[in-house]
């Protein structure tokens, strides 16, 4: 058995996993903390990819700088979507929330398909040709390293936002007791809107960072919605850190699966893990058992 191949897979997995972590943390904030079931999360990531793509082809600026713009646009988009569509059904069943966000996701995906067509797109940046070598047997592609770095910084920022800022604390307060929170002077709708927007921005930025290393097509987001939920469940519902760790685990598991069984099974393994965790330990691998 080739140890180096396995090691390479693990390293690639960690690099991929960092981007996954960003998407997962975004959903952990939206769903884990705010209990908003967002089935459009992957679509927002896809929108982030397309926004960055358009900006890149128009201006030639690197996605690794554009992501800030993408993040801002997706933040605004998320905020508007929350107030226009989610707020009116606040308090309704999960059933309705799922269907609503599912619909939003469908609209995003198909609107993009209408505008850009169903073709696959790809961008070219010089960084794609650079590889770093770690020893004689392991190499990593530069774009992945850059996005890993940016994702780590943003993940830390997201963590600090949730744990240290007033809004983040308010969000956690709402999660713990949604009846007492308004009594403490928390403007529940505003906090939810901001959380939704922040989570969406995280997804959008992950999309921007993914653009140089992935194919772009309207349906690319679907698998990421599901992966994001896998991460949130694995990580233990409310835990932002848990989702991040789960992202890394997912990345590594996928790459190892690809190595030994082939690419095609990677996604299937994700779902198998999901089903197993839900059946055996619904509070997640990193979560706490609640009554």
């Amino acid at each position, binding site marked *: 058995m080739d140890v180096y191949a396995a090691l390479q897979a693990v390293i690639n997995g960690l690099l991929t996993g960092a981007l996954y972590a960003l998407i997962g943390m975004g959903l952990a904030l939206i769903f884990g903390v705010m209990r908003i079931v967002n089935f459009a999360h992957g679509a927002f990531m896809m929108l982030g990819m397309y926004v960055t793509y358009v900006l890149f082809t128009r201006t030639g600026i690197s996605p690794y700088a554009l992501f800030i713009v993408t993040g801002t646009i997706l933040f605004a988009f998320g905020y508007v979507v929350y107030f226009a569509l989610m707020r009116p059904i606040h308090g309704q069943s999960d059933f309705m929330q799922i269907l*609503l966000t599912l619909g939003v996701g469908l*609209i995003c995906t*198909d609107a993009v398909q209408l505008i850009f067509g169903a073709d696959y797109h790809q961008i070219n940046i010089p960084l794609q040709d650079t590889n770093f070598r770690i020893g004689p047997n392991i190499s990593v592609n530069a774009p992945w390293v850059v996005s890993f770095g940016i994702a780590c910084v943003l993940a830390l920022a997201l963590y600090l936002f949730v744990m240290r800022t007033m809004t983040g604390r308010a969000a956690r307060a709402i999660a713990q007791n949604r009846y007492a929170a308004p009594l403490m002077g928390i403007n529940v709708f505003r906090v939810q809107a901001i959380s939704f927007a922040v989570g969406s921005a995280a997804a959008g930025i992950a999309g921007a960072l993914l653009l140089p290393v992935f194919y772009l097509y309207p349906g690319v987001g*679907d698998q990421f919605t599901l992966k994001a939920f896998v991460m949130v469940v694995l990580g233990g519902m409310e835990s932002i850190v848990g989702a991040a760790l789960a992202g890394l685990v997912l990345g590594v598991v996928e790459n190892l699966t690809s190595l030994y069984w082939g690419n*095609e099974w990677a996604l*299937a393994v994700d779902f198998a893990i*999901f089903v197993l965790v839900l059946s055996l330990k619904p509070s997640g691998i990193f979560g706490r058992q609640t009554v």
Partner: protein
Amino acid sequence: MRRAHWLAAVAAVVLSLLVPLVVQTDYKLQVLFRIYLFASLGLAWNLVGGYAGQLSLGHAAYFGAGAYGLALFSGTLGMSPWLAVLAGVAGAMACALLIGGVSFRLRGPYFALSTIAFAEILRLTAKNLPGLTGGDVGVPVPALFHGNINRSFYWAAVALAALSFALTVVISRAKFGYYLMAIREDEDTALSVGIGAARNKLAALLISAALTALAGALYASIFLFIVPDQVLALDVSNEIAIVAMLGGAGTVLGPIVGSVVLETASEIFKNTFKEAHQLIFGVLLVFVVLFLPGGIVGTIAGLLRRSDIPGEGA
């Protein structure tokens, strides 16, 4: 069921069967086939999603099981086509047993997510085992009818829709239907009056899966060839759920109305906007959730109830 309603239903079925006398074009018969097929699918889904209140977004699993059952049992195992259809139904019910067994223990969004995960696992398995399923390349499906195919398939779809409708009516008025609705409204309350929630949800799913598989087999047979991304895709699950929600989940007529509206709209959209004709699905879904949570039929029923002198409930 009141006599007038019963007569109306029979008349509707008879009229539907007579349609091919008037409509002769292949294209129109195919559109009608699709409308009746999705009415059946919506009615089947409605048992689980509407009456029992369990949001399954993975019904493609049973649809695909029916389709692949027909293809593989007749192809590899050499069964005669209609026997293969039954085998496919059995296979779908086996899937339902597994999927339901695991998923029904989960509450809220986890149930929906679990159903999606299972459907995706099936789809990916079909894609990745070309030796068994033909993989992405696909697999041929035997013709269930010969001769005037479009008319025969249309009649089959009418028959399936009639069967699904009849089952829905019978169930909704029986103890089983009441039990499902109780589970939908509040599962803890249902348990407190002795309702075996798991057992009843599973029963509903088994019936739903069987009907869905029959529809899947018909669908596969009219195309004579299937690939995983066609019959096991998320899109199929979504379309089925939207048909029922648009028309009115938890009502008897809802899925039928929903299919007529959705499939007609989809057809019109398809002719104008070649790509992205599914945009209409998303828009209608959002619209229904925001403005018509009871669906078309549910909302109309609600309005009629309010204008009545307080009397019999719906």
